[in-house]
């Protein structure tokens, strides 16, 4: 299976706003035994980076960019049935994953939620634009074994810091993993916001979750 070709075809489907074609391409790839992780890491993520770049370069309109995001989201949601019935049966723990910042860039953490879910975790994905209070309330209610916070813009650093602080005051034992573009672009951010682990990519985040699960939580 030629992943590079699939990625290009997928991007061209996105640019043409052809969601059926995008769905078919991906369905075929899954039938040809491509894993969800390969698909997320090597097709969706780079495709959306490319779409973002084209928008920033003013080569596509804001409408096309939004449509591309919505199509990818719809393609991802079409695997949910597959995801939840094929996830690892061994229960690894409960995770809350939230995204601080603008909702245009929330596909990354959304994909991470599915990848961690696949390993046997019960991941509650909260998405973007959720106020700190609401996230904290969910933490109290769900008592997760792991919390993930993703941020795309540095501008949200105060919110992240506040959230981490409240979680730690509530229960210092709950590990907090942070990640997202903002942490990569601004290396000082991790130290500023606090947290127990910085996941720079899907692989690192997955490894952290695996390590925690291995501790017999």
């Amino acid at each position: 299976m030629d992943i590079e070709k699939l990625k290009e075809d997928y991007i061209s489907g996105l640019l043409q706003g052809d969601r059926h074609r995008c769905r078919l391409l991906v369905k075929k790839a899954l039938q040809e035994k491509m894993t969800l992780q390969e698909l997320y890491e090597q097709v969706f993520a780079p495709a959306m980076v490319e779409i973002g770049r084209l928008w920033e370069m003013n080569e596509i309109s804001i409408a096309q960019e939004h449509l591309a995001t919505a199509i990818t989201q719809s393609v991802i949601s079409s695997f949910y049935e597959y995801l939840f019935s094929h996830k690892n049966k061994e229960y690894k723990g409960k995770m809350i994953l939230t995204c601080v910042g603008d909702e245009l860039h929330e596909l990354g953490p959304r994909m991470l939620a599915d990848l961690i879910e696949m390993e046997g975790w019960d991941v509650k994905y909260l998405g973007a634009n959720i106020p700190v209070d609401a996230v904290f309330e969910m933490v109290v209610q769900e008592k997760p074994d792991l919390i993930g916070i993703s941020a795309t813009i540095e501008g949200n650093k105060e919110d992240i810091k506040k959230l981490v602080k409240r979680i730690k005051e509530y229960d210092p034992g709950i590990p907090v993993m942070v990640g997202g573009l903002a942490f990569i672009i601004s290396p000082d951010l991790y130290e500023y916001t606090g947290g127990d682990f910085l996941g720079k990519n899907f692989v690192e985040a997955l490894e952290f979750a695996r390590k925690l699960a291995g501790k017999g939580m």
Partner: protein
Amino acid sequence: MEMDSKTKSRGFIIRCTRQGVIKDIIRNELKQEFPFDPEENIHYYLDHQSLIEYKRFFTEVTESGAGLGWQLNLKGNAETRALTFAGVLEDEDLLVVAAENVDQILDYYEELIKKNSPYANKIRDIIQRSFTRNLIRNTGLPKNAEIETYHSINTLNNELTNVQRELTKKNIQLERIDEQKNEYLGMAVHDLRNPIGTIMGYSEILKAEIEDNLNDEQKEMLGLIYSSSEYMLKIIDDFLDVSKIQLGNLKLDRILVNIEELVKQNISINLIVAQQKEINLNYTLKGEAPIVMIDPGKMNQVLNNLIGNAVKFSPSQSSIAVRISSDHEKVMIEVVDQGLGISMEDKDKIFNPYQQAETKSTKGEKGEGLGLAIVKKIIKGHGGDIKVESEIGKGSRFFVWLPKDLT
């Protein structure tokens, strides 16, 4: 866009105070022409006209956070050069990016993002804010209206996807729980079957052996023990069927069967009860008697259930019609009664296990609500389907079709 590597990143990025004093030179690919001194003021390099323009550029940046595409003439060592300026606020300072054209400013962005430089984020800010502003200018919409609308739609879409994710997850959990429940039910019911079989067996023996020595009341009690245990056994067998069938264990032993004979058998079984209620139970066959590849035992269960139900729920002195017809593709069996009918709401429910329509039987007969669920499973297992049409107070028409195709 031209992507000539030689023209990449030809300009400079500097940080200066709001007064224009250069604090930091981040990048300078034009240093031969503009060897900036960190103590100098950017104003020093601008000609008179450009100084006025710079002030307007500065105003745009301070008012809206970023500016892009300003043409300024910069005085260098050798000559004056027209450069494109972009700027963004950075805390108290101003970050200024200048290059020959906008594309080259974008090249800076691409280069910096590859290096994970924090300045990439700043340039991204400039580009996004400026393009967004241009878009608003071009569409003539009230400030930010279009962008906000897109964001709102996107937010709603995200929320819907989250709900969809949670629902799919819950649904799959429920399916698992349902499977487990059926498994437990199957085991529990199986364990109940033996003792009830014992009760039924011994009460039958007692009835045969000592009935003559009993008074009427005792006879009735013994009769009730027998008939109740018989009834319970039937329920248990139905439960076992449901739990087996729901676990996917429906096993069909198909042979060639004359449907007409099967229907006639079932009519004669139900005829006694029908006659007691003075119900006219009639049967018609349109065309030739169809012969199909089915499991006769299972299909017997289907017919007995449909005809038995019709008799059970029909008022006395009404009629029930059983009709068989066929075309080259399928066999159709209809059971039409003049009973109480089924409401629209119940029509969807009656084929689900453990659900029975509100309708009371005419003589208060008990029903465990499994019959039609089993019927549907068996028919589906044969590749056919069952539907019901009904009107409250007028009666119901159950319609079964089975494929003729033997393959």
